[in-house]
């Protein structure tokens, strides 16, 4: 079995990678609910392996005894054979399944339940859009997208909705998933044991760019988080250089402002993400590309190449206009 060790190497590597931040493996839990689910998985895997190997063993026995003499057309000791079926096909499964039921569905499931109303210090509202995540902090004017900051070791009540089709909110290292279904609000607990970045991705097929609808949860110390939230709550910074002023002019007079909001300005579009503090985010287009000036310019000029089918039209801007616009956007710290 020369293939086996080679197969195992990537498992180890990838779980290790996921542990270093930015991964999204359910097997690298970073909170109690995710941890309990992964423990449940390892136990179920153990039981399933016993059953599987037992059955393969019996088939192997049949193969080894294939040349044995016997009476064709007749079974021997029919009662014993029937008894085996009743014991291993009926009684043992009932017992094992009973245990699985009690542990998984009555015990572990309690840990993954949504938090009881009023039992958490803060709540966040996430709204799914084709194809990004709108994030609102209850009780503040802060609105951001795709990068959800939370204070570490704090229970956060997450309420989810959708603005269009069904999406599913899923950050596997922190908890199970919850669907975002029109007309209803889903709730789930968000909690991280230690600071770090936890990647998540839309888990319900939501159209052509389902594959590029990722996000991350950034858990940080309470003080850092408070500073971040205070900044997010402020309106957009005013431009300070002539180039930025021209860029802002472009933003407000072209299609940009039809779809995007810059709090404190006339731009109040709701189709795309809120850009008030765009530069506080490290990625663009729901984690599709890094948030760098060159990538930002490429995104503005030809978004359909980067993320085909997304709702942003390309803008026909000349080089100077593009430079000024990027300059302005780069100032939205």
């Amino acid at each position: 079995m020369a293939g086996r060790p080679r197969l195992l190497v990537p498992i180890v590597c990838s779980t290790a990678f996921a542990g270093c931040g930015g991964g999204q493996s359910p097997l690298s839990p970073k909170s109690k609910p995710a941890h309990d689910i992964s423990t449940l998985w390892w136990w179920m895997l153990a039981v399933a392996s016993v059953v599987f190997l037992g059955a393969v063993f019996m088939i192997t026995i049949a193969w080894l005894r294939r040349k044995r003499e016997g009476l064709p057309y007749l079974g021997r000791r029919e009662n014993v054979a029937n008894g085996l079926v009743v014991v291993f096909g009926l009684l043992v499964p009932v017992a094992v399944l009973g245990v699985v039921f009690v542990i998984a569905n009555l015990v572990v499931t309690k840990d993954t339940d949504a938090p009881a109303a009023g039992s958490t210090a803060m709540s966040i509202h996430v709204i799914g859009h084709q194809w990004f995540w709108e994030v609102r902090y209850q009780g503040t004017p802060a609105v951001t997208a795709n990068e959800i900051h939370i204070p570490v070791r704090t229970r956060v009540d997450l309420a989810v909705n959708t603005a269009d089709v069904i999406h599913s909110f899923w950050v596997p290292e922190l908890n199970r998933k919850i669907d975002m279904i029109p007309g209803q609000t889903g709730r789930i607990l968000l909690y991280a044991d230690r600071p770090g970045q936890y990647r998540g991705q839309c888990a319900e097929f939501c159209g052509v760019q389902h594959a590029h609808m990722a996000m991350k949860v950034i858990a940080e110390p309470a003080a850092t988080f408070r500073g971040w939230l205070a900044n997010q709550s402020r309106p957009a910074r005013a431009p300070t250089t002539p180039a930025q002023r021209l860029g802002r002019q472009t933003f407000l007079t072209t299609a940009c402002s039809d779809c995007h909001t810059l709090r404190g300005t006339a731009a109040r579009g709701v189709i795309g993400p809120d850009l008030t503090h765009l530069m506080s985010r490290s990625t663009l287009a729901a984690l599709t590309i890094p948030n760098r000036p060159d990538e930002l310019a490429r995104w503005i000029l030809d978004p359909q190449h980067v993320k085909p089918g997304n709702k942003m039209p390309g803008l026909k801007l000349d080089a100077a206009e593009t430079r000024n616009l990027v300059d302005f956007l780069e100032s939205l710290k």
Partner: protein
Amino acid sequence: MATVASPEAARRVQRLERVWRERPGLLGWLTTCDHKRIGILYLFTSLAFFAAGGVEALLVRTQLIRPDNGLLGPEKFDQMMTTHGVTMIFLFVIPISIGAFGNYLVPLMIGSRDMAFPRMNALSYWLFLASGIFIYTGLFLGHGPNAGWFDYVPLGSKQYDPGPNVDFYALGLIFNGVSSTAAAINFIVTIFKLRAPGMSLNRMPLFCYAFLAVSFALIFALPPLNVALGFLELDRRLGFHFFDVAHGGDALMWQHLFWIFGHPEVYIIILPAFGIATSIIPTFTRRKMVAFPLVALAEILVAFIGFGVWVHHMFATGLSSITLVYFAAASLIIVVPSGIQLFAWITTLNTGRPEFKTPLLFICGFIIFFLLGGLSGVMFAAIPFDQQLTDTYFVVAHFHFVIFGAAVFPILGGLYYWFPKVTGRMYHERTGQLSFWLAFTGTALTFFPMHIVGLLGMPRRVYTYPGGMGWSDYNLLESIGAYVLASGLFLIVANLLVSAFRGVRVGPDPWGGATLEWATSSPPPDYNFPVIPKVTSAYAMWDREDREEDARKLTRGDLVLERGHETPASTVLDADWDEILEMPSDSPWPITLAAAAAGVFAFLLLGHWLVAGVFGGLCLAVLAAWHRQEPQLA
């Protein structure tokens, strides 16, 4: 033609030949009502769709062979992925198992000369063919179904999917459902009423139990799907609001309706496979099935409990925890009848004298894959685990082991097993075994790593994925596996094609099979059996005296029925002789009706309601002509 002992017998057989002779040539195939010919039509058509679905799968796997691949854009990928699912389920697995295997074998196994409603049988086939062409027309026009095979709304609504893609899907599946419903009714009546006198229900082969269970499941599962698809079309075409939350509709209702159909559908897919397994195992272990009554009961129970588990597809939708716990319990309970069957197969293997020829190898592969898929299935009845892993590649691994590994492997084994019956020639055994190992390795290599990428967090239905997530190597492996699997399947087709012309000629019963299809010549004559066989046990072919009695019955003229186009009917439970049924011969009406129905659906799609109505009227006219009793030959 069967061996003939006496001059009287020879005369009777000659008369049967004349009465039952099928029209030759293309016209014969277009108007046939013979269950064997219809079975063969189903076989070739469903295999063609299997090839199409396979090409779609290869395209999907090739797109995913490495991160950020650019072979298929997202729109094409979504169409390939959706059409792959729709094809494999509605145009391949169900038609090949029920249409091809069921049609060809059920009448032979119960000792009948045809299905109960031969013309409706032909209608089922032509409707199936037309519905398949209908769905593929969409794909070839660039408007294939693209919202996933379960087509969740509102993604599948007009607002988010304005093209005709979803209309091809919805109308195509309603169209297809008519075919399946007609087939299911036909099987129920055939199995209940056309069994040879003496074949009481407790002597009926387990294969037929599986088909009986499937047929009932189909009849009850399809209406919710049709209702859902009807609502969807009303929403999309006429501005209704069944699923439109903004106007008081309910998006989640689609999921309920779909999965009330969709979960029984899984058992509809797999039960015929169970039936094939319970045919092959006794033959190659030289022993009767262990725990026959338990297995028969389990087949029925699986189909029944399958209707009470649908919410486990919706554990992440935020339903109340009482609901989730109830459906989780039901989902665990359904494991029990499956466990009984699994252990009955394994115990039969273990206590018999197995001869590992190609068909039995495929059944062993089936048992292993069914275990894998079943064990991962049990895990999805653990609510928190389901909520974590649903909609990831772990699910893709799970259901492919169930509906490819467990449902299709017996079909492949069955192709080999019944090949000599259908063609009168034997396939090439060594090539057969090689094809098994290729298909087995390919399946394991394609689908097993999907468990791991799922556990590493890769969601399903993504047209691409970033590198650096630990998913790339596994995806490469899966894509290679898909090509190995394809080569195995190709080898099966090649083996059977070549053997159909070059294979060694075989007699009626090359395997020493247990059921009645082996009592008649290979291939069977148009009238199936020169005399309706005597049955005194569930393993009719292993009762030598009964088969000798058949030869004497032929000489005496007892249940030969050579005077007309006839087959006997018997009572439902005990199969006592009941009456003689006059069977219709070939007819142009089934194909005409299917063509008229295709007109209805085509013009519904185009939105020409009036023309669709005209075609609807045409359907009624054809039905009226159909019901004018045609003169009998005799």
